């Protein structure tokens, strides 16, 4: 687990990226959410032994990152950080699945390695797509888009509340955690007793904050729902964006572009 402060910095950085002014940022969030969903479903619908067919899918995040002028290195670093569970499970594949699947000249590659590589590529694709969506759109617009796509309003309100107070609470928790670290010696003093009272105090403070917030909201005329300006519309540009990427994803799903290209080139060379 990362430190609280590190996670906060990360969150703020992604949030700042979402304030960019490229045409992709200005696109209605629903279009981006839909296109990303189509992309992810297409990517994960491949069988476990397919590798080359997945590679052309990198065009989607690559284009969005390039056209949205996002920092590619930063996103790649984040992708590398969050892959451990998938890699940990995937690394077992080469041990359990030793059937030879690929012949690269004299080199024989077992099915396990192919499916492991496929899992890694899938992780890279889906994680990059999710992070790109967040970096291009921002969390609150995504929530609004999801509400307009049918998410319950109560849950949307919960998400917006959480997002607003996440920074405040994480700062507080980070300070408490740092204070505990400064007062403890190595592992001594970081036991369950101090941890429980730290969490308990944090919880009490959180609770009191919620009560103050509730009173402040009532004072400002809160009636149970937030008034949100209906902004953005699903115009021709959005429709074109969704149609183009959906069509491309489905075509790439049906035809293995890398394989076709490769057989074309190897066919001419030999």
């Amino acid at each position: 687990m990362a430190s609280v402060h590190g996670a906060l910095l990360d969150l703020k950085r992604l949030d700042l990226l979402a304030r960019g002014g490229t045409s992709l940022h200005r696109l209605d969030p629903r279009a981006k959410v839909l296109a990303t969903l189509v992309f992810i479903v297409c990517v994960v619908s491949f069988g476990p032994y397919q590798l080359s067919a997945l590679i052309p899918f990198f065009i989607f995040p690559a284009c969005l990152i390039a056209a949205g002028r996002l920092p590619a290195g930063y996103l790649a670093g984040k992708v590398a950080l969050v892959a451990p569970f998938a890699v940990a499970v995937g690394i077992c594949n080469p041990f359990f699945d030793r059937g030879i699947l690929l012949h690269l000249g004299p080199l024989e590659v077992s099915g396990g390695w192919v499916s492991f590589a496929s899992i890694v590529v899938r992780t890279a694709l889906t994680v990059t797509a999710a992070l790109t969506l967040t970096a291009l759109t921002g969390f609150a617009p995504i929530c609004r888009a999801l509400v307009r796509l049918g998410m319950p309003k109560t849950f949307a309100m919960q998400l917006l509340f959480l997002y607003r107070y996440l920074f405040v609470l994480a700062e507080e928790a980070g300070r408490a955690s740092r204070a505990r670290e400064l007062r403890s010696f190595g592992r001594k003093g970081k036991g369950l007793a101090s941890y429980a009272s730290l969490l308990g105090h944090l919880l009490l403070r959180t609770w009191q904050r919620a009560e103050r917030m509730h009173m402040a909201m009532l004072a400002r005329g809160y009636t149970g729902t937030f008034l949100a300006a209906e902004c953005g519309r699903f115009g021709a540009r959005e429709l074109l964006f969704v149609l183009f990427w959906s069509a491309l994803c489905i075509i790439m799903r049906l035809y293995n572009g890398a394989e076709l290209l490769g057989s074309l080139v190897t066919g001419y060379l030999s």
Partner: protein
Amino acid sequence: MHMADALLSPTVGAAMWAVSAGGVALCSARLCRERDDRLAPLMGVLGGFLFAAQMINFSIPGTGSSGHLTGGLLLAILLGPSAALLTVASVLMIQAFFFADGGLLALGCNIFNLGIVPALLVYPLCYRRLIGTAPGRLRETVVTFVSALLAMQLGALSVVLETAASGISALPLDKFLLLMQPIHLAIGLVEGAVTLAVVSFLRKARPELLARQSGPSATSTRLTLAGCLICALLIAGGLSRFASVKPDGLEWSVAKLTGATSLPEHRAGLPALLTALQHKTARFPEYQIAPAAAPGQAPAAASTAPQGMAVAGKGSGVAGAVGTVITVLLVAGAALILRRSGRAAVAPEA
């Protein structure tokens, strides 16, 4: 314990999305009916609390490792099941969007494993049943530990089942179970200890916070919830079984291939294995066979269909690798050009 997109098949992902979306919708509707408007800010900040608390570790004595709170059960004790599910789901959503923990398709699985299981399954069916109205210290300890353990075990079990049903990982079901369940036994003990410690701290500091939730709860809503969950589980189970048919066949065919070493067997086995990979190359045999067969054999037209399939099968590895490299270069080139044109467009403005 976050499930990842890469290990999921779309069938399982969609089924779990449907189950979790149903759970979230149900709980939203219940909260809407309750109309307790104190709850909205409380859930919001408690979500923030949970997010932060999950990143603070404590050292476990004697083991050298450290643990942290997962929090589903604690929130259910503090807020009740519906609000707890929404809070956990919202934290998972932040983690999916900003830290890509899990992923967007796996979000349904994660909400189920970490939210629905502790809040809607373990809390009403185990914790509330056993704890009674005025629990003693021993009873509270035992019930909290049992519930936390149960929640963790069920969560880990559903991770294993989801992975196995998707068939992307080749890990056998029994080995994966043996790997996950003992680890989550330990994690469950930690979770139970933390939950108990925080709850007893709160009981000492502000007992009224806990008293709020231990009032009488309507049995009928609990029953409907349980009924909905059982339906959801049945649907998910049925879908998973339906989805797991195909990978089993694939694994079986791989096992068959390892046993077969002779060339004719090889020819017969490869097409079965490389179904989709080879399908494309076999559909355009002229790319593969005509140039490859021309130098070796003069009558290229004499090559029969099975021979053509075998050539395509052998070549497909190389073709795939070459194609992969070329595609990577093409994608990188496209991205570079896009970026450069973007900069050029910005430059006059700057």
